[in-house]
């Protein structure tokens, strides 16, 4: 178990601008965590810091394990725009398994299982890059699924998709959640946060303004910024 994840005075600045002021919090196993906030609030940066794609300019990201390789292997991330290699859908999943040092014998069956899980089995041998946006995003989820991560980070996974593709993606995310994978998802979409989140971290201008269970958050947000965001207002105007 690499969870719980602790952020210890984690901070990030770029170009002299403070994007994430020092932030401490703990994220444990179990509930699906939604990082909610407006565009530019710092959600993506925060996720990249947690996932290790960005190096913090202050503070630390601490997992309960110390073995660097295990920490890497136990997490996966799905981005807003999936990046697929110019090979078949199946080969894209197999590639991820190969990098993760899964034995050659196991790779194909695991890849096929995960394609089945997201409903892409009939398209397994299609070149990944010619799939539609929604299909590519499901493929990105299959690629993550095959890795059996303990934590799955999702950065606005449906922001560039139409409603029906969005529904399909959300179904897969729910299946991930049900299988015991810890979901940490950034979104600016209130409906999606409500549908998928058990708890909400509300981020405003890089600061964690509010952390509440989802039910409470949407009924009675405790901060003025969150209340304004829910009402659809822009709190900084």
């Amino acid at each position, binding site marked *: 178990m690499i969870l719980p994840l602790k952020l210890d005075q984690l901070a990030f600045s770029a170009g002299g601008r403070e994007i994430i002021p020092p932030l401490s919090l703990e994220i444990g196993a179990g509930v699906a965590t939604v990082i909610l906030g407006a565009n530019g609030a710092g959600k993506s940066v925060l996720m990249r810091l947690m*996932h290790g*794609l960005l190096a913090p300019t202050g503070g630390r990201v601490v997992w309960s394990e110390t073995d660097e390789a295990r920490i890497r*292997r136990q997490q*996966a991330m799905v*981005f807003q725009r*999936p990046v697929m290699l*110019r090979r078949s859908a199946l080969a894209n999943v197999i590639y991820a398994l190969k990098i993760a040092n899964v034995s050659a014998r196991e790779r194909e069956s695991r890849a096929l299982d995960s394609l089945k899980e997201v409903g892409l089995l009939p398209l397994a041998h299609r*070149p990944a890059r*010619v799939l539609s946006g929604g299909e590519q995003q499901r493929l990105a989820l299959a690629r993550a699924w095959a890795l059996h991560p303990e934590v799955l980070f999702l950065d606005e996974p449906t922001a560039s998709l139409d409603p029906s593709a969005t529904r399909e993606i959300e179904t897969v995310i729910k299946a991930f959640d049900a299988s015991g994978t810890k979901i940490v998802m950034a979104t600016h979409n209130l409906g999606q946060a409500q549908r998928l989140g058990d708890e909400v971290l509300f981020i405003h201008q890089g600061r964690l303004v509010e952390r509440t269970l989802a039910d409470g958050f949407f009924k009675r947000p405790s901060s003025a910024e969150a209340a304004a965001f829910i009402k659809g207002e822009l709190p900084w105007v």
Partner: protein
Amino acid sequence: MPTFADALYGALALITSRDAQLAGIVALSLKVSLSAVVCATLLALPLGAAVAVTRFRGRRVLIVLLNALMGLPPVVVGLVVYLLLSRAGPLGQLGILFTPAAMVFAQTILILPLIAALCRQAVEDAWIEYEEQLRSLGAVGMRAALTLVWDIRFSLLTAVLAGLGRASAEVGAVIIVGGNIDGVTRVMTTTIALETSKGDLSLALSLGIVLILLVLMLNAAAYLLKEAAQRRYG
């Protein structure tokens, strides 16, 4: 002094006559330049990709150097390789001076920076798109570099073709290290230079036409391959 029309007529006659000497020269040219392209590509693609995805001290100097060396003068490469391979030189033991092997060696050095620099640029552009995803999957360093090279292989064809074009068109390096020995190291470009100075413009021009046609055909084939791949893989 024959007119251009005379030379052209003579050239066409020579090409259609399937002259054995002409065929030998064309074959050796292709053999030397294609061998050099294979050697240079095997070295240049990993080098270019590694420079693209890794960060180290002196990286920017290396990039400027590679870019500058794209324009390496063939005669200078010829001279340096000549010194290396001459009997008293550090590689004199090989005894390959004035053989096709020496020509392959010189052309490899000539086009290596060109292919590496073009590959570096292409991989770096792709890296911008792939970086987060590959790092998230745990592919870093040389592994990421080779994944990128394979993924953009059809785009890199252009870099390899540029190398082939430069190798097959140059005369300065091969004439110095090959010596333009009849039947041994005489290739198209050195023959054109020689025959022109001797006044046999028909042979020179027919070789010129063959050279241009060959380059044209190779480029057309590469273009079609790339187009087909793009349709297939997106």
